């Protein structure tokens, strides 16, 4: 047994000297132990949540006989000391010991990884976890919040297996979930192109693409089930693109050297979601899914430590409702809208995930955000959202800026057109810097390279924040090919262009149309202008191998969890993950937990926990509508977005992150005193719904900045200016090869960090290079 010792300590979050005696701090239990193998002392902290003022803290407490750290000057010292004593008693030492030998996992994070070699883990796990019999499934209710790819597929499969599903979404129909907007495609290791793809290669690409910050076991499983997703979707009638032989077609996406992306023009997400929606409809018709449209989840309800239900607001009439179940699944998508401007749908929010965090679910890697290189640049202050131009365009588009500053100026003042810049005066900067992958480098790399050029003054629009994505050479290439096939004149320029444009229209027609409607320029004739924008969040609720959060009975799937993409997601992998989680993983792993629930009986929704949670939600809504402020919700959301983009965006540094934390915390206070929400609670009130979402973003933003500050390295989407090579490439650090899982203890800036160390046994961790 390792040596152990328990003490208290104060939780200083800034240098000690910065505190005044009246500052409040949290008291932690500190647990020391010496590990048998390494003999190194390890300190593990656990917050107790008890707060005291510095002046009320007895720094000599351990020398005193009564061993009470809170001094009697604190009016609540008795109560507080009792809580502390009780916490020490309850401190789960046994649980800690079971993990001490295994240095790879933190003491609070049990990832439940199966044993065996990586290619057998999932199979073994499925063979050994507990199952629920069909007869018992009929007696078990599951709540699924969210009906995007992850939630929709999960609902359908769970209902098909026999569980009673209650599904929720805030839109007027499950078919409108944000997944509908995904454009480019979905990956799967089918190797239909015979270009050497395999489960291992997809696994390898995803772990490398994620910059070695994801869990090997989860990613391997994802690669393993990927092929099945395509079979499933085709059987459901998803009309993927096909070639003339009638077989499925593929394209390539960034960061990989094979063609494994299945697609349906630029509307892959739509087609996949409608597939999942149709599977849901079949179960709705059978009465196995009860669908609640226009319902927003406002809290999860925990009873005896287990997730037992949710509180929702009916967005049509404003009524609060209590829904109970044996387990709750969150499939509520990502939180990119914390930046205000992003490619996410207007309603995408963090509320469900954040409320779960507040109730005890750890939030992992909040700072890992994907900034997508090819989006339509911001056009003015009125901008309400940004539009993505799919990564698939980089298959045929070449990214460039002028080499000479005088050309840049001429373009900006309108005296020159981009088409008038000669080949040798163009800087195809991705092809120049990364010859092996060229325009198809991963997103984080492409985005930073574009920012670098624009920061150096080469941006091609009025604001200097745009680069070109040019299809001219592809149009010629395809045109020539077509002319040859059709036996037409290869040298007839007009004809070739016409043929070439037809091919481009077939591949990307809807994207080109979208661009033209927004920018009012014809991208078949002049290069598109693009700039990076917030797109996807790799971070999310921490989950174990079974996709269960740190709250028993609460699961998180799809973009809402953190599990598979590490510090950067590869294109076309989010759809894959959402459907893998929903169709093939969660429906099995959840049985392991529910097998203990077969004799629980229906869960009551009028217990004190439900009533209390409902009251808290009601109070918050009351506060919002009754606040006599003077500023709209959007005013605060925009200001938060500015802080996030300027200080927690594509490049971050210590000073900015520190000030971001302070600014967000201040803005949050201002929000609660100054916000103005019109109308009442009991009606259709979009401003009220928005206000609740922004309130949660204002908390998440602070944790986001704290996480970015804490991670003193650059990796994937997280780029710290202090940690870069001379050439401006990211410098990763071995000691940060872990997942940051944050525990809520009050103010987000006081959150407590738990580390899940990441071990790579099947992949050699290397400097990630795309040169």
């Amino acid at each position: 047994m390792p040596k152990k010792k328990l003490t208290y300590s104060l939780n200083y979050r800034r240098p000690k000297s910065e505190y005044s005696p009246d500052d409040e701090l949290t008291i932690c239990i500190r647990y020391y132990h010496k590990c048998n193998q390494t003999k190194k002392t390890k300190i593990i902290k656990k917050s107790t949540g008890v707060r005291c003022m510095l002046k009320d803290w007895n720094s000599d407490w351990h020398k005193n006989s009564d061993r009470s750290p809170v001094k009697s000057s604190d009016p609540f010292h008795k109560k507080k000391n009792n809580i502390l004593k009780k916490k020490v008693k309850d401190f789960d030492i046994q649980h800690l010991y079971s993990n001490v030998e295994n240095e790879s996992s933190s003491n609070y994070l049990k990832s439940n990884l199966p044993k065996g070699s990586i290619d057998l883990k999932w199979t073994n796990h499925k063979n050994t976890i507990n199952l629920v019999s069909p007869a018992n499934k009929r007696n078990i209710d599951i709540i699924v919040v969210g009906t995007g790819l992850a939630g929709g597929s999960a609902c359908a499969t769970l209902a098909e297996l026999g569980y009673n599903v209650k599904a929720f979404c805030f839109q007027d129909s499950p078919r409108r979930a944000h997944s509908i907007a995904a454009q480019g495609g979905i990956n799967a290791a089918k190797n239909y192109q015979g270009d050497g793809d395999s489960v291992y290669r997809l696994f390898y690409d995803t772990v490398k693409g994620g910059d070695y910050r994801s869990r090997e076991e989860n990613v391997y499983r994802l690669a393993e089930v990927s092929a099945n997703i395509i079979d499933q979707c085709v059987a459901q009638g998803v009309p993927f693109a096909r070639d003339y032989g009638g077989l499925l077609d593929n394209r390539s996406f960034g960061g990989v050297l094979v063609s494994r992306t299945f697609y349906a023009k630029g509307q892959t997400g739509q087609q996949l979601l409608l597939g999942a929606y149709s599977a849901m409809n079949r179960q709705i018709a059978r009465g196995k899914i009860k669908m609640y449209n226009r319902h927003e989840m406002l809290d999860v309800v925990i009873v005896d430590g287990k997730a037992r239900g949710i509180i929702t607001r009916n967005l049509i009439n404003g009524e609060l409702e209590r829904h109970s179940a044996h387990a709750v699944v969150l499939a509520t998508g990502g939180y990119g809208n914390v930046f205000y401007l992003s490619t996410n749908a207007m309603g995408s929010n963090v509320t469900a995930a954040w409320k779960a965090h507040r109730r005890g679910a750890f939030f992992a890697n909040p700072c890992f955000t994907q900034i997508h290189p090819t989006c339509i640049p911001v056009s003015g202050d009125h901008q309400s959202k940004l539009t993505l131009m799919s990564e698939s365009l980089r298959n045929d588009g070449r990214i460039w800026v002028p080499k000479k500053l005088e050309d840049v100026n001429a373009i900006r003042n309108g005296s020159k057109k981009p088409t008038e810049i000669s080949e040798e005066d163009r800087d195809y900067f991705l092809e120049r810097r990364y010859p092996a992958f060229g325009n198809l480098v991963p997103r984080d790399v492409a985005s930073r390279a574009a920012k670098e050029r624009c920061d150096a003054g080469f941006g091609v629009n009025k604001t200097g924040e745009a680069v070109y994505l040019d299809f001219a050479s592809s149009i010629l290439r395809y045109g020539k090919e077509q002319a040859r096939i059709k036996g037409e004149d290869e040298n007839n320029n007009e004809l070739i262009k016409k043929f070439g444009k037809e091919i481009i229209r077939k591949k990307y027609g809807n994207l080109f149309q979208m661009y033209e409607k927004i920018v009012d320029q014809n991208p078949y004739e002049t290069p598109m202008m693009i700039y990076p924008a917030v797109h996807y969040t790799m971070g999310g609720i921490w989950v174990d191998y079974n996709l269960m959060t740190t709250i028993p009975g609460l699961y998180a799937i799809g973009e809402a969890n953190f599990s598979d993409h590490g510090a950067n997601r590869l294109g076309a992998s989010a759809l894959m993950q959402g459907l893998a989680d929903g169709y093939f993983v969660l429906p099995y792993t959840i049985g392991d937990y529910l097998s203990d629930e077969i004799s629980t009986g229906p869960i009551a929704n009028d217990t004190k926990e439900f009533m209390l949670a409902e009251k808290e939600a009601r109070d918050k809504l009351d506060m919002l509508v009754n606040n006599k402020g003077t500023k709209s919700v959007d005013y605060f959301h925009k200001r938060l977005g500015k802080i996030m983009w300027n200080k927690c965006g594509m490049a971050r540094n210590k000073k900015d992150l520190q000030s971001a934390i302070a600014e967000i915390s201040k803005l949050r206070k201002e929000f609660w005193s100054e916000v103005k929400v019109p109308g009442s609670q009991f009606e259709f009130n979009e401003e009220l719904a928005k206000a609740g979402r922004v309130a949660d973003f204002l908390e998440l933003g602070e944790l986001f900045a704290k996480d970015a500050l804490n991670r003193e390295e650059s990796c994937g989407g997280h780029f710290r200016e202090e940690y870069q090579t001379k050439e401006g490439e990211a410098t990763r650090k071995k000691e940060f090869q872990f997942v940051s899982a944050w525990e809520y203890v009050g103010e987000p800036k006081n959150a407590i960090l738990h580390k899940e160390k990441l071990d790579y046994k099947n992949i050699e961790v290397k400097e990630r290079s795309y040169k």
Partner: protein
Amino acid sequence: MKLTLKIWRQKNSESKGQMVSYEIDNISPDMSFLEMLDVLNARLILEDDDPISFDHDCREGICGSCSLFINGQAHGPDRRITTCQLHMRKFKDGDTIYVEPFRAKAFPVIKDLVIDRSAFDRIQHSGGYISVNTSGNTQDANSIPINKEDADNAFDAATCIGCGACVATCKNSSAMLFVGAKISQYSLLPQGKTEASRRVLNMVNQMDLEGFGNCSNTGACEVECPKGISLDNIARMNRELLKASLKK
């Protein structure tokens, strides 16, 4: 740009609505139509007025939420776009713009410009699926080749976003284009053939139950459909319906 907006205001499904006039200035032609409404709403909030409710989410023409009837046209004057893709450059300084919800008996108004389109969902529940289990135990995706033309046509039909512009445009409030698109998608694919008769009978039946009108082949729906869903889909559905009825 300076504009006059005449907008349908209705407190809730029970109350009677009316057109209300608003003046708005400093509108940039680069704004989208919905961003213009955002600007108006920001002002209304500060003036202690009730902001205008309208449905929207993706704001890029794919989710099918937005549904405004602008100057007598579903999704406004431009072709092949949704309301959220409409930009103010399509209007002139000094214009008066009429904004109403999509109207149909089957689409009751919830508030202002927000309507209830759950009738569409219920039609899909009645048969808009292929009865295959999601266990993944199915055959390899390439085991049945599908000729490209059928696959492409199925895809074109499947791009319907369920916005309801076709219904709002039709003088009979018919949902034939919407239903035809779904029926077509499945009838063009081998996977959908097995249940074809049951599907078309059930979906058409549900469509009638929801109170959508009949199709009189005017073709207005095709013109206003943001996704260019063609009338061929209605013809294909009628063929399927005939086939199924004969079998019955």
